[in-house]
C-alpha cells in the first residue's frame, strides 16, 4: 500500500487526522501510566539504602528524559520547517514546547523533593540540575519569542532559529557545568544512585516513560488542532474585514 505522506503535510488535511489520533494516544498513555505506577509501587523492591522514598524516581527520571527528548523533537521539526517551508512542522514544534517545559518543571520539582530526604538539600548547582534549569529557560524563551510577532511567518521562523541555537547550546552548558564541578570538588553531593538497579525498577521507569511519550504526542495533536483553528479563524476575519472595506469603497 502506498501512502501519500505529503497529503498530511497540509494543516487542513492533518487536522482531522490529529483529532482522531489524539484520544488514542492519550488513552494508551493512561493505560501505560497506570501499569507503570503499579510496577513502581507494588512490584519494584524497596531500595535497601533509600527505603521507600526512592520511588519518586519513577516520575522523576522519565520526566527528565522526556524534557530533553522533546527539545530534540522540537529542534527536528524546526529544521524540517525551515528546510521545506512547511507551516505544519512549525506548528507541531510549537505545540510540543509547553509539554516539554512542564516535564522539565516536573523533573526539577520531583528532584528537589527527592533530594531533601536523601541528601538533606533541596538544590545543588551540579551539572544535571543546572542544565535542566537552563533547559526550562530555553523552553520559556522559545515560547515567549513566538508571541512577540504579529506576522505569523516571522514568528515561526525566528523562534525556529532560536530553538536550534538552544539545542546546540545544551551540550555546551552541560559540559561547562561538569567542568566547573570537577574543578571545585568540595564536599559536594554525588547524585549517582545505587550502582545495581533491579530490573523491575527499569521496567517501571520505561513504562512511565512510554506513557509520557504517548501523552506528549496526544496532547501535541490536540494543540495543533487548536492552533490550526485559531489561524483559520484569523484568516477568515481578515478576509471578511477586507470584503467590508472593499464594499465601502
Amino acid at each position: 500500500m502506498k501512502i501519500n505522506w505529503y497529503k498530511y503535510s497540509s494543516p487542513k488535511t492533518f487536522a482531522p487526522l490529529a483529532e482522531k489520533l489524539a484520544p488514542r494516544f492519550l488513552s494508551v498513555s493512561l493505560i501505560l501510566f497506570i501499569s507503570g505506577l503499579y510496577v513502581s509501587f507494588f512490584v519494584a523492591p524497596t531500595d535497601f539504602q533509600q527505603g521507600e522514598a526512592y520511588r519518586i524516581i519513577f516520575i522523576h527520571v522519565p520526566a527528565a528524559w522526556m524534557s530533553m527528548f522533546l527539545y530534540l523533537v522540537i529542534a527536528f521539526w524546526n529544521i524540517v520547517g525551515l528546510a521545506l517551508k512547511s507551516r505544519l512542522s512549525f506548528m507541531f514544534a510549537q505545540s510540543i514546547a509547553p509539554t516539554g517545559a512542564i516535564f522539565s518543571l516536573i523533573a526539577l520539582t520531583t528532584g528537589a523533593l527527592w533530594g531533601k530526604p536523601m541528601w538533606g538539600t533541596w538544590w545543588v548547582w551540579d551539572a544535571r540540575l543546572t542544565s535542566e534549569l537552563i533547559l526550562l529557560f530555553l523552553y520559556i524563551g522559545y515560547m515567549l519569542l513566538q508571541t512577540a510577532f504579529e506576522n505569523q511567518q516571522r514568528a515561526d521562523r525566528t523562534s525556529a532559529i532560536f530553538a536550534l541555537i538552544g539545542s546546540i547550546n545544551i551540550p555546551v552548558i552541560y559540559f561547562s557545568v561538569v567542568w566547573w564541578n570537577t574543578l571545585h570538588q568540595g564536599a559536594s553531593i554525588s547524585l549517582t544512585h545505587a550502582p545495581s538497579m533491579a530490573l523491575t525498577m527499569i521496567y517501571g521507569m520505561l513504562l512511565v516513560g512510554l506513557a509520557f511519550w504517548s501523552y506528549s504526542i496526544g496532547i501535541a495533536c490536540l494543540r495543533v488542532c487548536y492552533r490550526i483553528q485559531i489561524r483559520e479563524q484569523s484568516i477568515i476575519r481578515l478576509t471578511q474585514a477586507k470584503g467590508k472595506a472593499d464594499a465601502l469603497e
Partner: protein
Amino acid sequence: MNPWVILKALFLREIKLALHRRANILTLGYFYIMIATLFAVSMNGDAKALQSIAPSALWVSALFAIMLSLNHLFTDDFTDKTIEQLLLAPAPLSMLVAIKIFVQWLTSAFPLILATPFLGIQFGMGAAEIGSLLTSLLLGTPTLTLIGAIGAALTLGTKGSSILIAVLIFPLYIPTLIFGSSAANATLFGHSAEEALVMLAALLIIGIITIPYAVAVSLRIALE
C-alpha cells in the same frame, strides 16, 4: 565593486556613528561602575567577602552592561532602512554583520574592560587577579557581544525588545560566564587560570566562525 571597499566603508561608518553617540559609551561605562558599586554596597563593607566575590561580581556587571547595549545594534539601521542596503550590498551579509558586531564590541565592551582595573582595586583585588580578570574579559566579552547580536537580530522590530533579548540570551550566556568567572576566580584561589582561558578562547573562535552567519540568517528572516 570590490567587497573590501564596502567592508571598509561600513567599518568607518560604524566608528563614525559610535563616536557621534559617545555619550552612550560613557553612560554604559557609568552603568557598569554603578552595578559593581551596588554589589560592593550590598556586601555591607565586609572587605574579605567582597574580595572573594569580586571576579564574579565584575563579570556579572559586565554581562549586564553588554546586554543593555545590544538594543541599538540593529534597530537604528532597521528604522532608517540602512539594513536593506546592507542586504543588497555586493559583500557577504555575514561579513558585514561581523564588522558591525566588532565595532559594537569596541564601543561597548572594550571601554568596560578599561574601567575594570580601577574597580578591581576598589574590590581589594591584587595585581595578578586583576590581570587574569582582564584577560578573561578580553577573551569572553566578544563572545557575549556575538551571542547578543543573535538576540538583537531575532527580536528586531518587536515592541519592548530589550527584556525579550535578555530572556533569550541569558541561558546562552551561561558557558561564557562559567569559564570567564572561573578564570578570574582560579587566580584568586591560587589555581592556574590557563584551562578556563583556553576554553574561553575556544568558545570565542567557534563564535567568530558561526555566529555572524546565524545573525545574517536571522536578519534575512526579519526583513522578509
